[in-house]
């Protein structure tokens, strides 16, 4: 079985400051890793994903995450946040190589609050 722990429930930060949202996972098998973002009153949108290859993955809006297998972590970072980044962020894993799983295991979520 897999599990995901997001270490911070809320992260307040000032605009243009850097931010890190922490995610640790537990799994006895290889996994794919994801970060999803949920804006108020909306569904989830994929922010970035790690499937294989380079352990550093980037999104189009400046976020990046690094897969660290030894520490079983997939922390999300952004060097300079904007007010529009205020949202709920979810880390998730799925079992690798299991076909049409559609079964993501999500963390509890981290609320990023960007203040002016």
């Amino acid at each position, binding site marked *: 079985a897999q599990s*995901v722990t997001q270490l911070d429930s809320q992260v307040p930060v000032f605009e243009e400051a850097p931010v890190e949202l922490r995610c640790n996972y537990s799994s006895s098998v290889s996994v*794919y890793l*994801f970060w*999803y973002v949920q804006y108020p*009153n*909306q*569904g*989830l*949108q*994929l922010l970035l*994903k790690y*499937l294989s290859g380079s352990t550093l993955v980037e999104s189009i809006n400046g976020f990046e995450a690094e897969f660290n297998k030894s520490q079983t972590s997939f922390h999300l970072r952004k060097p300079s946040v904007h007010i529009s980044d205020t949202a709920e962020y*979810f880390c*998730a894993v*799925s*079992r*690798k*190589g*299991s*076909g*049409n*799983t*559609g*079964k*993501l*295991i*999500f*963390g*509890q*979520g981290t609320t990023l609050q960007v203040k002016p």
Partner: protein
Amino acid sequence: DAGVTQSPTHLIKTRGQQVTLRCSPKSGHDTVSWYQQALGQGPQFIFQYYEEEERQRGNFPDRFSGHQFPNYSSELNVNALLLGDSALYLCASSPGALAGDAGTGELFFGEGSRLTVL
């Protein structure tokens, strides 16, 4: 290209009633998964449908059932509603076997149906 669409967006029911939620997957997707997101929590996997059959199921009671139609759309049914069933119900689709991209687990989510049980 329409994304995942869900209906209704909001609904209110009373304890003991039954509810049906509907989902149309993104064009080209044949696999539909349902998630329950309680307030302040991450989404929890309910079940997944592929080729009109339930393929996987999470830790939810039999009161939760579903169906997938030949056009890949899906329904989630919940019987004998409890107060604790109040949540945002999310539908997610993925390309699956038809697109030759099975197994990555990347999902496309709808905006959800918010169910309130009084």
